[in-house]
């Protein structure tokens, strides 16, 4: 469970988040959608503490998260464009993260195999393709069996096999009661995975609720059209 309350963020004159209040319940995949520069990334990064909010509070599993780095023990994160120290191999990256977080909760080799990363373990990360870096990022996000997943465009660059395996895994985690926060530009993917939707526009929440609610409100069955309606209406 993640909650943000009255979250604001200003970059100079630009107000990226204007008092966002939203809830991300456990056992649900909540999609954060909105046009470019609507504040999606800022919101995700604020939950993680990568962006320092100007005001408001973030709660992770009921604990205030700002100024409390330990809440990140419960978070698995996949950034939009994962980058790793260039001269470090895949195996070394995982070892460093283990050193920071303690022993992994899941079987590392099983995860490597599941995401098709096994052939790349001794390669330095600078030679990895974008998709392979994404797979490493997925392994790191799942490895410590966190309660909360923050997934920023997680399937961008994944091949169809890895992508469908990834989505199966996310659905399984949701069914185990995990909190999943997801962004994606691929509406069919959100349709497949998301239970709830938080729609952001210019730093404000325009809609928050179940997908069913959205369909009723807009009269559209397809998610893409429903979201388009929201954008038109706002």
């Amino acid at each position: 469970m993640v909650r943000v309350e009255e979250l604001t963020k200003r970059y100079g004159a630009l107000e990226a988040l204007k008092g966002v209040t939203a809830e991300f319940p456990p056992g649900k995949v909540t999609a954060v959608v909105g046009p470019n520069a609507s504040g999606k990334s800022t919101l995700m990064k604020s939950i993680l503490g990568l962006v320092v909010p100007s005001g408001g509070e973030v709660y992770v599993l009921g604990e205030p998260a700002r100024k409390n780095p330990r809440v990140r023990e419960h978070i698995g994160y996949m950034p939009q464009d994962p980058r790793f120290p260039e001269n470090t191999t895949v195996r070394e990256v995982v070892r460093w993260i283990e050193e920071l977080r303690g022993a992994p909760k899941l079987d590392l080799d099983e995860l490597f195999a599941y995401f098709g990363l096994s052939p790349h373990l001794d390669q330095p990360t600078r030679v990895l393709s974008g998709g392979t870096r994404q797979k490493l990022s997925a392994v790191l996000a799942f490895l410590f069996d966190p309660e909360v997943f923050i997934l920023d465009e997680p399937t961008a660059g994944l091949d169809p096999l890895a992508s469908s395996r990834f989505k199966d895994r996310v659905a399984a985690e949701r069914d185990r009661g995990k909190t999943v926060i997801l962004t994606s530009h691929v509406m069919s993917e959100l349709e497949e995975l998301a239970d709830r939707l938080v729609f952001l526009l210019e730093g404000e929440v325009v809609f928050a609720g179940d997908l069913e609610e959205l369909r009723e409100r807009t009269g559209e069955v397809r998610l893409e059209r429903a979201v388009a309606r929201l954008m038109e209406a706002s």
Partner: protein
Amino acid sequence: MRGPVYKIFKYTLFDLLRSRWLSSYAVLIGLMTAGLLYLGDDPTQAAVSVLNLVILVVPLVSLVLGLMYHYANRDFALLVLTQPVPRGSVFWGQLLGLGLSLTGAYLVGVLVPFAAFAALGMGAVDWPTVGMLLFVGAMVTLVFSSLALYLGVGNDERVRALGVAIAVWFVLTFVYDSLLLAFIILAQAYPIDRWVIGLSMLNPVDLARVLVLLHLDTAALMGYTGALFKKFLGTGLGTAAAVFALVLWTVVPAWLAGRVFARKDF
């Protein structure tokens, strides 16, 4: 279970030791020291020559390598910041790793030629002077590593940060002294000696020079400010004042950089 600062420090050290920059730097310093030492007649004079080198090269290399490392290492910082470690530990771990590995490279570069010189029986090495040289070089390295991180953390554009760093280096090593000299000449009718001491404390490069010269008999030959420190503060107090000012020069930029880092958006 070790603390996160230690873990980040260990990673940074490991990463830097693996990179070619650091070993190249040690070799560069070693070659320059060896050149001055083996080609000259007097090891003490060589130490003074190495000092001049320290004043020119060490700040520049510390700034440039410090900045290059900071930018090369952003991916690592970004990855670690999403893990359950406090932000401060990421910053301090990196600063320690950077400062200590640059210091280590410098110490090895200076010490090996002097030790070889003594071991080969090529002449008497004035060890207290060499020790002073090592200490001063280490302090200068720490000062400029912490300045480098301050510039790096505050600037997302590496070209801009590098430009500012080179300007800072140029001002502190060349321009500042000329201005100070001009001030001394223009104001020679007035009792400005104490002012000059204060002004040279504002420049870490001057402080490094003063520190070594206080411990050499050639102080009067080597610069006006060194002589002033000796005259007004004496060797003991002068040394203490210069060391204290250098420590401030290390701590203040590091602390400022830490504050910027704590509030930075990634």
